[in-house]
C-alpha cells in the first residue's frame, strides 16, 4: 500500500468501564508496530464507570504526530454504546466521506436513519460477540475488529502482539472477539448532506469570569442533583417482589443514595440518578434484584 501523508483522526465514544481507552491504546500500539506514527489519549477527567467518555487516536503512515489536542473533525467515529447516540452528538465534526463504526443489536437498515451524512456506516453486534467470546459485555476489543474491517487503518494481525501483551491469558478471547467482529461487521454507504455541527460535546453552559462569586462559591445548596447521572447506566436494577423481604439492604448499600421505598414498602431506584453499578443486586441476600440491560 502506498504510504499516505494524511493523518487519520479517530474519536471513540464509550462509557467509563467499556474499555474505549484500551481500544485506542491497542490501535496506536499496533499502528506503531507496523512502522506507522500514532497516538492515543483520553479526554482526561473525573469520569466514572458508566459516564460518557471520549478517547482519541491519530494515525499516519509517515507524518510524525504533533497535535496534542482533542479530535474535533474526525475521519472515523467509533461508538461502543448504542445509547450514546441519543445523549451526545457522536457525528459532530465527522468529515464528508467519514466512517461511523457502531455497536448495536440493530441491522444497518434499522439504524441508518439515525445518521444523516455522506458517510460509511459499519454496524456490529459487539455486545453479543463479546459475551460469547470473552464472557463479559466489554466490547472494546470487539470494536477494534469492526474498525479494522470498516477502514484500512491497520492490518488485523498487527493487533495480535499488543493484545497478548495487554491481556495475557485472556488474549485469546479478546483476539477471537476481534476476528469475529471483523467477519460479522456489516457495511453500508449513507447519503445525505453533512450538517454543520450544531452542538459540541459541551452541552452545559458555564458562567463568565465576571459572573463568578468570590472564591467561586456555589450558593445554591444541593444543586448536584441537577446533574442527572442516570444516563450513564447500561443496566438497571429490577426488583422481584416475590423474593423481596423489604429489608432495605439495597437502600443501605446504594453508593448513589438513589434507592427509596415506595408506598407499598418495596424498594426501587430513581432512574434519573441510578448509574447501574449493580451493588444493590450483589448485596441483596434474597437475590431479589436483577440487573437488566438498558435498551
Amino acid at each position, binding site marked *: 500500500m502506498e504510504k499516505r501523508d494524511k493523518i487519520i483522526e479517530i474519536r471513540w465514544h464509550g462509557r467509563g468501564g467499556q474499555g474505549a481507552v484500551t481500544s485506542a491504546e491497542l490501535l496506536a500500539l499496533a499502528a506503531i508496530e507496523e512502522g506507522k506514527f500514532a497516538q492515543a489519549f483520553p479526554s482526561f*477527567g473525573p469520569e466514572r464507570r458508566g459516564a460518557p467518555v471520549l478517547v482519541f487516536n491519530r494515525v499516519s503512515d509517515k507524518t510524525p504526530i504533533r497535535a496534542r489536542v482533542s479530535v474535533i473533525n474526525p475521519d472515523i467515529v467509533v461508538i461502543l454504546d448504542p445509547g450514546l447516540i441519543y445523549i451526545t452528538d457522536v457525528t459532530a465534526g465527522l468529515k464528508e466521506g467519514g466512517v461511523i463504526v457502531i455497536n448495536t443489536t440493530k441491522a444497518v437498515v434499522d439504524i441508518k436513519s439515525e445518521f444523516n451524512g455522506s458517510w460509511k456506516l459499519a454496524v456490529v453486534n459487539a455486545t453479543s460477540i463479546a459475551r460469547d467470546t470473552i464472557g463479559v459485555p466489554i466490547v472494546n476489543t470487539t470494536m477494534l475488529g469492526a474498525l479494522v474491517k470498516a477502514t484500512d487503518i491497520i492490518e488485523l494481525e498487527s493487533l495480535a502482539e499488543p493484545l497478548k501483551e495487554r491481556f495475557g491469558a485472556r488474549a485469546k478471547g479478546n483476539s477471537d472477539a476481534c476476528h469475529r467482529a471483523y467477519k460479522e461487521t456489516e457495511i453500508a454507504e449513507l447519503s445525505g448532506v453533512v450538517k454543520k455541527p450544531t452542538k459540541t460535546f459541551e452541552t452545559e453552559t458555564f458562567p463568565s469570569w465576571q459572573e*463568578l462569586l*468570590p472564591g467561586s462559591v456555589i450558593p445554591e445548596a444541593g444543586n448536584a442533583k441537577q446533574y442527572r447521572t442516570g444516563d450513564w447506566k447500561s443496566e438497571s436494577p429490577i426488583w422481584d417482589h416475590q423474593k423481596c423481604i423489604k429489608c432495605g439492604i439495597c437502600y443501605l448499600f446504594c453508593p448513589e443514595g438513589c434507592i427509596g421505598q415506595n408506598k407499598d414498602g418495596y424498594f426501587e431506584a430513581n432512574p434519573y440518578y441510578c448509574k447501574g453499578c449493580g451493588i444493590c443486586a450483589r448485596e441483596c441476600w434474597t437475590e431479589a434484584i436483577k440487573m437488566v440491560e438498558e435498551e
Partner: protein
Amino acid sequence: MTTKRIGMEGSFAIAEAIKLARVEAIAAYPITPQTHIVERLAEFVANGELDAEYIPVESEHSAMSACLGTSAVGARTFTATASQGLELMHEVLYVASGLRLPIVMTVANRALSAPLSIWTDHSDAMAIRDCGWIQIFAENAQQAFDLVLCAFRIAEDLTVLLPTIVHIDGFYISHTIESVELLEQKVVDKFLPEYRHPYPLNPDKPVTMGAFGPPPIYTETKKAHEVALRDSKKVILKVWQEFGKLSGSHYAPVESYKTEDADVLLLCMGSFSETAMMSIDKMQAEGQKVGLIRLRLWRPFPTEELRQAVSKAQLLIVFDRALSLGGAPPVCSEIQAALYPLKTKPKIVSFVGSLGGREISIQGFEELINNGMNRAKRGKLDEFEIIGVRE
C-alpha cells in the same frame, strides 16, 4: 488619635494590633522569629483580654488549614509564621486566596534551609510570590502595627476578599524594642467594622466552597482572582488614606525618600530600607544626587507607582535580599519587566545581598550605591552581583 509613644517589641506591637482588631480566631504554630507574636496572643486569650478561639495545631500546614475553616465560617482570622513554616503552608496559601478568604498573616521574614538559618532575608517571601495574596512590607514596629490593622480592613472589604500578608523582617522588627504609638480601641473599632463574609459556611444556609474546577471553568476562576487582586489596589489606597487621616501615618504602594533631585535611586524592601536612608542622608550631604525608593506593596505589584517614582532617574540600583537560583533576582526581574515597555527608563543595576541575616551597614549601602554607579559607568548591566561574598 494615637496614644503616647511607648517602648515595645515589634512582635508585641503586632499582637496589640490583633487584640485591637478584635480577631476572633487564631491558629498558629511557633517558629522563630515569629513565635513572640503568637505567644503574646496566646496570653491575651488565656487571660481574657482577647475573646478569640486560639487553635494550637501540630504544624503550619494545619495552622493555615484551620484558618481556612475559621475564615470560611466568617470569623476574623489571624496567623503568623516564617521561613520553613511558610513553605510548609505553601499549598494551603493558594487555597486561601482561591477561596477568597480574608485571613491576615504576619510573616517574620527568614532565610530558607539548607543550610539551616534562622536569620532574616526575603527568600521565604519570594517563594510565595505567586500565591494570590495581597503582600505588604513593613520597615519598623510602628508600620507593622499600622499595616496589620489596615490589612484586616483591606482584606475584608467586600470588593476585595483576599488574604493579606504583612511581611516584617525577622529579628530586626520581630525582636527589636523600639517606640510605637498604639491606637485607642474606640478609634480602631470605628476604623475596622465587624467582619461579615457574604457567603459563609453555615449549616442553616449551606453553600459549596472549594468545588471542583474542570477545564471549562478553571481559567475563569483564575481571571476573576487576578482581576480582584489587581483591583484591590484601589481599596488599599483608600484604606491607607483613611488610616493616614486618623493616625497621621501615611502609606503608599511605592514610597520615596529624598528623591526630588536624585539621578540615582536605590530600591529596597523591608527594615534595611531605614539603614539605607541614613546612607542617602550622608551622601546627599556630600552633594551626591542619590535617593531611595521602597516597594511597600509587593502584591498587587504597583506598576504605575513604580514608573512614576523612577521617571526622572537615570540609574536604578535594585537590592534583592533573595536569589532566584539560576535566574534573575526576583525583585529586580519584576522591576525590569515593569519598566521595559517605557521609552525612557533608568538603567538598572542588580545586586543581591544580606542573605541569611548578614547585615549591611550605613557605609555598606554607601559602597553599594557607589559600586552601582561604577557598574553603570562601565556599562556592566548585563548581570547581577552578589555583594559581600568572600572570594
